[in-house]
């Protein structure tokens, strides 16, 4: 009996695989590109401990003590002081849009009560729709009330510095008072699932025609490229809506995620997001030469979408460049829209700043896809 494996046959297969690998440029690029991208994103862009979160301070007291407290907030590194809006209401508006993470309100008689040892309270409102983004900042705050005024409380006030904290920082978690992670993750999942399936399905829809040779026939028929593209996108919009219905129903009954805003508005935004993703898929399918390549391109797009959109890791924790890249991804804006509508109950005014980037994105990608669409076999 001879050994069933022969070196020359094995080697023949190995060589053949390498030859085919070399021919498939995109696959080869992916093999190098995906690990490289993961490394860069995980290594540099992702930070689970976001610092310098945008904060507005309404200091009605304007005393050395209140200024000291604000300074120590800043020194903790977690808070970045913005020029406050004219009113607290306007600041809350900015929080709904997502421009402000924290609002600190210091009452007018803060220093008077402090000096009297009445342990005054100041209010810190946090946008807690993403508990992960605010968690560390709030933890840092907890120790601040003990140490912030250490240097100011001297002389006769020194006794205030020791013992229980001289003032109380009340934290109000807006939008997600209990800090339930699911409230943030489940709406986010809707965006990620839609990104994944929509791009993949349309990406493969056109390359399937190319791969199976049916494209030649399709091109020989008197049909306009736009008719083909839109005709291929429409069925997937319906599929997308079915997915949304499944996710929302599950989110509601299994995780009790609230829908604070208007459902029809959410559905309208879903439509824009679906269309944006489907155009990406269509564009990929005009580039990819096989369904396999379309699939790989989908992953290449999906990965940064997951990591840089604020789905997995806090958006504000990322460096500037990563935030810019993230702002170019439809998922980033959709996450803000969905979390805004579902958790914050946002209306059109607060939603619009994240809707127009989707429309711009979609138009640009559609244009590229249309330009690249094969009208002939040239």
């Amino acid at each position: 009996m001879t050994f069933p494996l022969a070196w020359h046959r094995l080697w023949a297969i190995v060589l053949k695989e390498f030859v085919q690998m070399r021919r498939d440029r995109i696959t080869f690029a992916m093999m190098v590109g995906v690990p490289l991208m993961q490394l860069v994103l995980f290594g540099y862009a992702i930070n689970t401990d976001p610092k310098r979160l945008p904060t507005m301070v309404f200091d009605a007291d304007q005393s050395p003590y209140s200024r000291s407290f604000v300074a120590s907030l800043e020194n903790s590194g977690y808070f970045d002081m913005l020029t406050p809006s004219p009113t607290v209401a306007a600041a809350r508006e900015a929080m709904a849009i997502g421009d402000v993470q924290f609002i600190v309100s210091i009452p007018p008689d803060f220093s008077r009560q402090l000096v009297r040892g009445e342990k005054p309270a100041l209010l810190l409102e946090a946008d807690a729709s993403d508990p992960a983004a605010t968690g560390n900042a709030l933890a840092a705050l907890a120790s601040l009330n003990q140490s912030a005024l250490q240097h100011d409380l001297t002389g006769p006030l020194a006794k205030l510095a020791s013992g229980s904290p001289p003032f109380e920082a009340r934290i109000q978690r807006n939008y997600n008072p209990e800090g339930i992670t699911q409230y943030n993750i489940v709406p986010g999942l809707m965006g990620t699932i839609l990104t994944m399936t929509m791009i993949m399905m349309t990406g493969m829809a056109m390359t399937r025609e190319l791969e199976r040779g049916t494209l030649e026939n399709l091109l020989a028929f008197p049909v306009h490229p736009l008719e083909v593209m839109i005709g291929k996108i429409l069925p997937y919009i319906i599929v997308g809506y079915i997915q949304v219905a499944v996710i929302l129903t599950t989110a509601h009954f299994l995780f009790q995620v609230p829908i604070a805003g208007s459902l029809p508005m959410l559905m309208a935004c879903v439509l824009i997001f679906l269309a944006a993703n489907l155009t990406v898929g269509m564009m990929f399918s005009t580039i990819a030469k096989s369904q396999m390549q379309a699939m790989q391109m989908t992953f290449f797009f999906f990965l940064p979408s997951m990591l840089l959109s604020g789905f997995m890791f806090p958006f504000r924790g990322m460096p500037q460049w990563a935030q810019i890249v993230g702002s170019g991804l439809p998922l980033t804006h959709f996450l803000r829209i969905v979390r805004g509508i579902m958790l914050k109950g946002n209306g059109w005014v607060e939603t619009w700043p994240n809707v127009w980037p989707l429309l711009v994105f979609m138009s640009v990608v559609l244009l590229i896809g249309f330009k690249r669409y094969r009208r002939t076999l040239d």
Partner: protein
Amino acid sequence: MSIGYAIDVRGLSKSFGSKRVVNELSLRVEEGEIYGFLGPNGSGKTTSIRMLCGLLTPDEGSGTCLGFDVRTQSAEIKKQVGYMTQRFSFYEDMSIRENLDFVARLYAMPDRKQAVEASMEGLGLADRAQQLAGALSGGWKQRLALAACMLHRPRLLLLDEPTAGVDPKARRDFWDEIHRLAGQGISVLVSTHYMDEAARCHRLAYIAYGNLLASGTPDELIADSGLTTFAVQDDSPALADQLRKLPGVEQVVAMGTLYSVSGQDGELISQGLTGLGNLRFAQIDTGLEQVFIRLMDKVEDPAQ
């Protein structure tokens, strides 16, 4: 405008990269004519057909297809041309009826349902209407493809090797159908490798390495070749080499129990055959195959 010509193109050229696939092709196909398009593999037949129906844009040249400009009016051409691709290009995961229905919708046929049923009836596909196209055998796939490209009642059919890999009976049925259609005034341009099919065309064009080498009716091509052919009644294997060495002999083909020997100078070959001793031979009609082999031998593959 060329009236009376289904296809009238001059100087069509097409290159892919540095390779010139079609070189200044001029072609005239009369209405109601079955025009055979012959040539070795890779000679530019498919590229030529694709240029005619707007799938490829010619680099040079001009002309009309059904009176429409091949460069600018490909949308109009597509509406009135039925193109059958070399490789089966219908949806294998759809049934015959679904495929035909799809095509009928694309052409916005007014009486869609009847048209689909009628075309299936006409080509004997009705019994298999529900069968998935992918499950059909080669012959039935060709029938489906023909039914689909006939569905919108085109004035011109462009058939790219429609019978490759199809059994003889199915091929004959297919050609009967094509002749029936031509009888109705439909023009047909068909590429093929089969000589019996070439013989059933009204006119032929022979193209090799992008160049049109000859065109005319089958009889004209045979006459123009100047070949004389003899059938030699002997099948001993050793004879083939002897025959090839005879003066004036250009082609020797073993065919079962006889050899067919052809050359330009019939007189010379006849003398040579007599000289070989007691061979039984007789002059026979030269076939298209000999004509085309001769054409092929005359040109050199520029790639070699």
